[in-house]
């Protein structure tokens, strides 16, 4: 059991390492001359050579990779090409903002999705169940930015309840923070709900077919009691797994959603740096996103292992 979890952890670390190789290869080796990228095409050969010397760019790639990795682990992410300021400063502010958004989205999405999934499992085939299935599938048929757009149209333009963009997050008051976070968080909720609702419904319905549920029904237990006390505890494993997976999905979801609302998070920073090819910023944002994603997938795997003994033998 512990061995299996450790094995997953080692695999997780291995994939983070592969990702770091990939990130370095794409952003450092591939684009060609970094000195030209920083100084521009018009720079003289001497100034380029001087910069190459200062940044150590004429050393072999594997030494630069080792150096880059060592610096990153110590929290030194280099200097942005675009703003000429240390990347670490910008990134730490942006990480805090993205975390706020992801946490609020998770706090909204998990209980709402689980409650809706349980309700539709309690009344399978009912009009509520059908409407929920169709509705949540319609929402995921649209890209996140379209959902965000429709929410803006409805809540910001038509009813003027919430700000349409959140270019800076007012963290001085809780109300201000929540107002700024509401629309981006609702958009993320729309992106992750369908999977969680459907998996919760499927997991509970799967248990509902078991003989001990029939036994409970014959004893005259109420529908609510059967679903909550008998079925739910036995369906916790797959549900927890899908929740963790969707928290991982929030990580990539924030990239698009932050652009929709001009929200000053890590995703917007990464997209802007890709457009300007600001490599040091791209490197660290990509590493943060991927590491978080891998860790959440690892968490999902571990929880699935813990909750379902049958998986332990299979692996």
């Amino acid at each position: 059991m512990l061995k299996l979890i450790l094995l997953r952890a080692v695999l997780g670390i291995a994939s983070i390492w592969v990702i770091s190789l990939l990130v370095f290869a794409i952003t450092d080796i591939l684009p060609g001359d970094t000195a030209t990228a920083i100084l521009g095409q018009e720079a003289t050969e001497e100034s380029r050579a001087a910069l190459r010397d200062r940044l150590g760019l004429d050393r072999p790639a594997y030494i630069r990779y080792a150096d880059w990795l060592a610096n990153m682990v110590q929290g030194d992410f280099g200097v942005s090409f675009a703003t000429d300021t240390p990347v670490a400063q910008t990134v730490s502010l942006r990480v805090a903002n993205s975390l706020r958004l992801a946490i609020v989205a998770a706090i909204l999405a998990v209980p709402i999705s689980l409650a809706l999934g349980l309700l539709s499992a309690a009344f399978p085939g009912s009009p509520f169940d059908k409407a929920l299935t169709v509705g949540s599938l319609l929402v995921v048929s649209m890209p996140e930015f379209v959902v965000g757009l429709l929410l803006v149209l409805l809540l910001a333009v038509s009813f003027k309840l919430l700000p349409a963009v959140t270019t800076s997050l007012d963290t001085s008051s809780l109300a201000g923070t929540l107002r700024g976070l509401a629309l981006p968080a609702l958009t993320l909720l729309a992106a992750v709900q369908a999977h969680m609702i459907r998996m919760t419904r499927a997991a509970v319905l799967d248990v509902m077919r078991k003989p001990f549920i029939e036994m409970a029904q014959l004893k005259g237990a109420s529908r609510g009691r059967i679903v909550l006390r008998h079925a739910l505890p036995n369906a916790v494993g797959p549900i927890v797994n899908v929740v963790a997976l969707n928290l991982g999905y929030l990580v990539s979801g924030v990239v698009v959603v932050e652009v929709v609302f001009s929200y000053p998070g890590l995703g917007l920073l990464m997209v802007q740096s890709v457009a300007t090819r600001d490599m040091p910023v791209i490197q660290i944002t990509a590493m943060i996103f991927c590491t978080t994603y891998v860790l959440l997938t690892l968490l999902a795997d571990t929880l699935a292992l813990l909750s379902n003994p049958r998986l332990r033998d299979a692996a």
Partner: protein
Amino acid sequence: MTMLAQTERGARSIRRLPDLTTLGILGLLLLAVNALLAVFGSAIAPHSAAELIGGGAFGPPSDAAPWGTDYLGRDLLSRVLHGAKYSIGIAAAATLLGFLAGISIGFAAAEIRGRFDVVMIWICDIFLSFPSILLALLVIAGFGTSLPVLILTIAFIQLPRVIRLSRAVAMGISTLEFVEVARARGESLPSILGREILPNSLRPLAVEFGLRMSFAVLFISSLSFLGLGIQPPEADWGGMVRENLSGIYYGALAAIIPALLIGLLVLGINLTVDWLSGEVPKAESQDLR
């Protein structure tokens, strides 16, 4: 003997299409309209994609611009028609490419097994642990954005999932009697894969093709919305949402129309997939038991 008869009938029911449902017809219709738009959209557009037709930004519908104008005063309808080939074409090309490569590798892995299989699955799992949007952002950071880069990137992102699925499907089929017989006849690997396994795995593969295609449509739209896909003055539907975003606050529909078209395209694909993955006609499935 009964075993053999059963598996043969099972194989035939995999090949059969389910009866058409209302939603299935709707999905096929939506797909057909979108395919026509992708092929003929540019030809029937009244204006070129970049032409300024006057009337100012976010103009109301008029004779020259039936759907109004966009943020630069260009005909919205024409731009939608020109954009169709990108939104649909890139997704279709990338998915086809990913499937051709993915099925070849996946089938081969299922038939060869051994070390080739293990290594392939290992590589797939590593790439699956990488969020797709971040992979695309990295590739665009390295290579810049262009039509070939976009198609190849999306095809590559599809690849590990297609390999895993086609491998699983082929493994199920490769133990059936008629494949054993082909193997005993001494048929070559390409012949077994292409003539025995492929025809019998078309339906699950078609379902997966639909799912991957709708992913590709959403993905290229999102990349263009981020400003990293098709570059101005050309625009796919996702790019049109991006450029006309500010119009929303004035109540202009310029961003909403392409957004809804993306939704309808994906809905069409999903409804078709639902129909394809539905039950084969009742009589036959009962026969199977």
